[in-house]
């Protein structure tokens, strides 16, 4: 895919991944490399396989063929060639290496904001309660919610919940952060506060793979943009190149044209 990755080995290496639900093909031999510190944004029409690809990276979805490696380690299967799933414990360990933020937040409603962040630190990372609390408070501070540590999710606005969702993911110190349309369920006036947090994480060098419909944000924050259509990668490049009018990819042009028509 990108020649730069020879010099700098890929942190995430998606290679020739295909997946079908029955007769519906959702991923067609997708290959994508993401190097450390890169922010890669996936755009494309709904049903193009963006979210499925993201969910394959931490094995929330299995795939039929191909290989996904993080830091050289196969994610969901024991070996690249086989379809033998890793054990439950192995999968959990692999998943802890990636952080995920969901469109619908998925905070644990019975735990406070701090409790949501502490759960993984305590049970997966084996931190003491005091250590976990300190880390949770640090990250809540980073996302501007230090004063909400002891609030339950139901007491927080959508934007605040999503910022806790981000804090919960990054507190685990994942190698890569997966963001799945994290602002799509938010009222427009709350989108900015969430994107601001993502932007500051990018500046800190967090490796990110995200699916978004926020084109302006994708343009400003991404190192590369991937355009997906019909389960395959249709175009990849720097934002300026991909979003420039007159790119020779017909599908991308019509996607962007339709997108502009509906969003501006």
């Amino acid at each position: 895919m990108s020649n730069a990755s020879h010099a700098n080995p890929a942190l995430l290496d998606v290679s020739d991944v295909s997946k079908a639900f029955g007769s519906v093909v959702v991923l067609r031999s997708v290959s994508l490399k993401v190097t450390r510190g890169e922010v890669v944004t996936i755009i494309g029409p709904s049903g193009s396989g963006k979210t499925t690809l993201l969910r394959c990276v931490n094995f929330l979805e299995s795939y039929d063929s191909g290989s996904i490696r993080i830091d050289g380690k196969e994610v969901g299967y024991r070996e690249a060639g086989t379809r033998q799933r890793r054990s439950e414990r192995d999968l959990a360990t692999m998943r802890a290496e990636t952080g995920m933020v969901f469109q619908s937040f998925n905070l644990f409603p019975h735990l406070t904001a701090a409790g949501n962040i502490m759960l993984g630190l305590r049970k997966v990372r084996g931190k003491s309660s005091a250590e976990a609390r300190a880390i949770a408070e640090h990250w809540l501070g980073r996302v501007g919610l230090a004063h909400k540590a002891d609030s339950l999710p139901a007491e927080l606005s959508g934007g605040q919940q999503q910022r806790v969702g981000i804090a919960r993911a990054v507190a685990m110190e994942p190698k890569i952060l997966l963001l799945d349309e994290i602002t799509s369920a938010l009222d427009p006036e709350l989108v900015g506060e969430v994107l601001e947090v993502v932007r500051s994480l990018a500046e800190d060098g967090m490796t990110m793979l995200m699916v978004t419909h926020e084109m302006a944000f994708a343009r400003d924050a991404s190192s590369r943009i991937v355009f997906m259509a019909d389960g395959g990668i249709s175009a990849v490049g720097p934002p300026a190149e991909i979003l420039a009018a007159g790119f020779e990819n017909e599908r991308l042009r019509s996607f962007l044209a339709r997108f502009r028509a509906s969003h501006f």
Partner: protein
Amino acid sequence: MLGQIAYALPFLAEGFAVTLWVSLLVVVLSLVVGVVMGVGLVYGPAPLRWVVRIFSDTIRGIPILVLIFFVYYGLPAVGLRLESFWAAVLALTLFKTAQVIEYLRGAVGSIPKGQSEAAMAIGLTFRQRLTYVIFPQAFRRFLPPWINGVTDAVKGSALVSLLGITDLMQAINQVIGRTYEAMPLYILGALVYFAVNYALSLASRRLERRFSFIRE
């Protein structure tokens, strides 16, 4: 008349102790087995799901009385000969287990899929996801039907008297056999059953309120 009842009270108390012991055994055993099988029904591989489904549907389709007689009089034919007490406990436990399976399935099924996924994403194992994420949320929905089922178990335990076990019901019948005072003794029995079950529902309501802060 009251003198006779007072005279019978220690005997009734022994019967009541048996009623409570049967109920407790049935409730605890069915809870443990039912939760394990219910988890199998929700999360297990297809063959396991089938086995649990068939078990639950079959048991729930049989009247408890038939089940009790089947275990006590029927199973010896295949070499399983149980004392009347344990036959009754087994039959009632089977019945209650099938119900617990359904309560669990309903309660766990009501938790959005995103909860499991978020728990997976931070690296929790299956057991940890159940313990720290799914069960604490499912508990509030599991509790009301389950407590209902517990009161049913206390009431249903009266059926063990049919195998000649001297529980509260049987003790009452025996006292009536000697005194011919049916009405006051049945009223006394009804009050005892009511007192136990009313206390249970009060406790349930209090627990539910304690967990009502969990909103989705």
